[in-house]
């Protein structure tokens, strides 16, 4: 599967505890919201990175096995990951699920990082990470009925406002988003 990480850490060949020690150091240099890819060969690193991320508040996205190499994806905790929405048009997960079930002509825009999207997303969703939205907005139709999702509703709020500024007329922010999504999902 294709996904981009902001920083790649090579911890191959290192035995416990070094993969986590290096991950922690690397994380200090990331901006909030950025994604770290940790490449490791220590089998125990999978459960430890997950548990470490949970204990520190970072978001463990998942692990991909490529031969001997385990690639772990962790997103650094944002400073304000809880939703305080400002975009006026807000909807909830259930509403979006109903819309999808009715096969209405809508666009689901997922503005999380590609590595987050890769591990779980709504089957028809289009992925444009928030940081790329401005330059890629032309991929979208300005009149389309767009539902914007992220993990908790925060990034999608910023994205909704940005799209509105750019002249999009029918944009709805979905709250809380993928962290609570119970509908259909797929992986890359």
């Amino acid at each position: 599967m294709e996904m981009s990480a902001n920083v790649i850490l090579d911890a191959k060949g290192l035995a416990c505890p070094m993969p986590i020690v290096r991950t922690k150091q690397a994380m200090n240099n990331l901006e909030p919201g950025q994604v770290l890819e940790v490449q490791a060969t220590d089998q125990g690193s999978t459960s430890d990175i997950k548990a470490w991320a949970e204990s520190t508040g970072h978001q463990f996205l998942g692990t991909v096995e490529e031969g001997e190499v385990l690639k772990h994806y962790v997103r650094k905790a944002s400073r304000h990951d809880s939703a305080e929405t400002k975009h006026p048009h807000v909807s909830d997960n259930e509403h979006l699920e109903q819309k999808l079930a009715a096969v209405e002509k809508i666009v689901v825009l997922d503005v999380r990082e590609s590595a987050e999207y890769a591990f779980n997303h709504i089957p028809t969703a289009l992925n444009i990470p928030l940081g790329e939205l401005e330059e890629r907005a032309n991929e979208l139709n300005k009149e389309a009925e767009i539902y914007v999702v992220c993990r908790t509703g925060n990034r999608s709020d910023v994205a909704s406002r940005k799209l509105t500024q750019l002249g999009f007329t029918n944009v709805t922010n979905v709250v809380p988003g993928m962290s609570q999504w119970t509908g259909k999902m797929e992986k890359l």
Partner: protein
Amino acid sequence: MTINAMTAKEVTKMVMNKAALFILDVRNEDSFRDWKIEGENFDYLNIPYFELLDGVESIVDKIPTDKEVLVVCAKEGSSIMIAEMLDEAGISASYLEGGMKVWSEHLEPVKVGDVKNGGEVYQFVRIGKGCLSYMIISDGEAAIIDATRMVDVFIDFAEEKGAKITHVLDTHLHADHISGGRKIAEKTGATYWLPPKDASEVTFDYAPLEGGNVITIGLTAINIHALYSPGHTIGSTSFIVDENYLLTGDILFIDSIGRPDLAGKAEDWVGDLRESLYTRYRELSEELIVLPAHFMIVEELNEDGSVAAKLGTLFAENHGLTITEEDEFRKIVTENLPPQPNAYQEIRETNMGKMSPDEEKQREMEIGPNRCAVR
């Protein structure tokens, strides 16, 4: 300063001597909850090493100063790091050499008794996992029963004792650990016996072990009588050694009985299990010394570290042997089952010869506690 390493053998002695030890287990919480070093007088603190990367100040107060302290992790790397950090903070602690990986593989030979004409019976206590294997030595020959995959321990032990391994037996097809039986037989030229009803899918040659078989060890004829006792598996077979010891496999333990569900047939096998425990065993002498293939809790260990008790004692005290109502028995052994052992299907296939995982993978498959009993 270099940090003191404690070996699995030393920790085993502490378990058997019921010594006091404070264990700082720095694996993640799930691993600790699933499986840890058990000792009657051991105290524990579980803090994952990755929560201590910035320092151990937060736990210094929680570590007693009047007890020996052992830091434990999965493979030893993290425990060395944390023991060094404790040392810098003025607390002396050892680490477990090789971590839980080595703990899981350590075998402690304990002599359980003699057989006629100078022979001996040894129990190999796999303290970290609760598996028990046996070696019967008589007159320069040895038989091994329910061997674990650490085959060199058995081969070296027999060599030290000057005995040639002539027979290797498994009481049943194991689902909780990988058998070393076939490998020992290959390396030593011994005969490998398996109950044929458990071996219908195996991919290798074996000698069919059936009720009534008599296997002779040594010139002075120490006999192993096979007794068909299904229930844990359909082929499960017990052995009476030298008319004195009853090797029960996974049918009867000291403080519990075998579970009938690890081949997916709890409902079918519960009747067999009851028949074996409540009829066939009842016909045997109560003086027989029961030697099971597992222990579940360290309280089952005797003073000398062995796991053994008279059959008559178990008839009186083992709560699995005192359920008079058949319906209640059925309910208990089919409804109250603990989680199944880690990777038990893969372990069964490995023991059938259908899979040949490498050593690292075998280790991983066996990780975790033993779960062969209904308690």
